[in-house]
């Protein structure tokens, strides 16, 4: 064993002290830079909301919310788009939830660990990464053309459902997985069959998680634009849609067309901004509901 006699003069106290001061300075400045960087998100969010809010002032009123579309900014309203978005959700919600929860139940409760399960799981995570515009092409080709649904609410809704399906599947899987095994055991020990156990014990307990995921999926669907544009929503459509076979316009579509035509009619920018405020409020509400559900039904076992 060697003695530590070779004294390293670079590591002497004076030297170290000087260097440490410098290092602490660098550390402090880095912290500041990182903080600013983290605050950048806040800044952008602030500017974005401020800009959109101020642009919407004077335009967002009852008349705007309850009127039909118009080429004249003063008369224009987004009632049709609101109804369109709503009816779209009427399709998306049940289709996605039924398909998504069923898939999750299959993966978590029925499938045995094997190639098929892995295939479905990988497939779902990859599906989640497919650009939405590709779903638009799928919708256009399969629902629009092949099934002849055109650019109806049904076609749009089915397209959106497939787009947000992975969100619901993953959230439901997590919720189902989080149901403790001892609850299942209790049910099986009473002579309950598998489906009885799933429907009466597992699903009710997993419900908050499933709901949260479903709401997040809806809020994604409500803001998606590209698939609808690709599906071919007409530029001007005044009629308030009545049923799911009607052609329609939706809030993001309206924002898109008004943004496009801003140079032609400057006030369209205000209409777009006002529509964005409505859209953001809807998203905010949906997300708040999701958070409330999440907090309210936090696990008690």
């Amino acid at each position, binding site marked *: 064993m060697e003695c530590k006699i070779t004294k390293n003069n670079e590591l002497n106290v004076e030297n170290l002290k000087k260097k*440490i001061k410098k290092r602490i300075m*660098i*550390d402090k400045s*880095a*912290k500041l*830079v*990182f*903080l600013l*960087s*983290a*605050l*950048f*998100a806040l800044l*952008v*969010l602030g*500017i974005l909301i401020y*800009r959109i809010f101020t642009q919407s002032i004077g335009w967002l009123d009852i008349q705007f919310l309850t009127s039909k579309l118009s080429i004249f900014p003063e008369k224009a309203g987004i009632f049709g788009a609101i109804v369109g978005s709503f009816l779209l959700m009427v399709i998306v919600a049940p289709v996605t939830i039924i398909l998504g929860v*069923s*898939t999750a139940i*299959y993966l978590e409760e*029925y*499938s045995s660990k094997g190639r098929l399960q892995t295939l*479905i799981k990988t497939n*779902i*995570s*990859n599906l989640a*990464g*497919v*650009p939405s*515009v*590709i*779903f*638009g*092409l*799928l919708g*256009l080709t*399969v629902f629009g053309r092949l099934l002849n649904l055109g650019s109806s609410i049904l076609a749009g809704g089915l397209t959106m459902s497939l787009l947000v*399906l*992975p969100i619901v*599947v993953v959230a439901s899987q997590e919720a189902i997985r989080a149901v403790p095994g001892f609850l299942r055991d209790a049910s099986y020990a009473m*002579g309950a069959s*598998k*489906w*009885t156990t799933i429907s009466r014990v597992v699903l009710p307990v997993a419900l908050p998680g499933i709901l949260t995921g479903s709401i997040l999926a809806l809020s994604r669907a*409500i*803001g*998606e*634009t*590209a698939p609808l*544009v690709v599906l071919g929503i007409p530029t001007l459509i005044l009629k308030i849609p009545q049923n799911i076979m009607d052609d329609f316009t939706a809030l*993001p579509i309206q*924002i898109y067309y008004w*943004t*496009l035509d*801003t140079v032609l009619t400057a006030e369209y920018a205000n209409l*777009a*901004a006002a529509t*964005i405020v409505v*859209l953001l409020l809807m*998203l905010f509400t949906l997300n708040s509901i999701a958070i409330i559900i999440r907090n309210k039904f936090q696990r008690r076992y």
Partner: protein
Amino acid sequence: MNNNVREIILKNNKKQKKSLDNVMPVIFFTAALISIITTIGIVLTLVFDALKFFRAVPFADIFSTQLAPLAANPRFGILPLINGTILTSLIAMMVAIPVGLTSAIYLSEFATEKIRKRLKPIMELLAGIPTIVYGFFAYSFVTPLLMAVIPGLEAKNALSPGIVMGIMIIPLVTSLSEDAMNSVPNALREGAYALGSTRLEVAVKVVIPAAISGIIASFVLAISRAIGETMIVTIASGSSKNFTFDITKSIQTMTAYIVEFTSGDAGSGTVGYYSLYAVGLILFVFTLLMNLLAQYISRKYREEY
């Protein structure tokens, strides 16, 4: 004891056919297949018509810089689109990676619990804003701002949508990188702090190297998102089909090409119509590879500890 409960139950059990128990798994399995069918649907949709395109257009023409799909003698060089896509994605990454990563470092290594609790919801909010809103923001705020600063910037350009796309992706990079850093065992941090390291040194020399694959996976996913992003570029990049590396000029991405084409002429069986699917297929393959790569990388890093 009420004696007949047992009898009722036994009687019920005898007549109760277990039909639901036999039917439900089939239903669930079918539902699970839908996701596979969707993928197959996407692939078939794209490949079927893309093949017609590849058969109709010579390979040399496809890999040229000449793109004029509607012209009397149409040209289908895909390079302008790929170039436009890469250009905007690069700009986006140049915004998203530094800001996203440093934010993640801040949140994971510097911030107190309190600050973290306040900043994270803001990130989540930013992540939840629809892309069309970012598109509007790019067009109505960022582009005019940039034009005031950069002379010669065209009203539609690659820079503005690139930057806004970057902003849009920041939360993704931040949250995934932060997850990766959080999974670095605290023992490593302690080891470094005990040697007199500052927070920065711990972050840069210990945490980031240990979390590097997770961080890189987040970058790859972010690139994939940027490549697939549609509305921002459609609104703000101006759909010029020129092959240019000049970010002040108008360009077109693959996604924007699809939107432009479908909002004009998506009606018929021309080569131009098939080109839509060819571009879609290339886009699909691009993003799929990116996603698989990200999954592969992040699976690797999970194995490390």
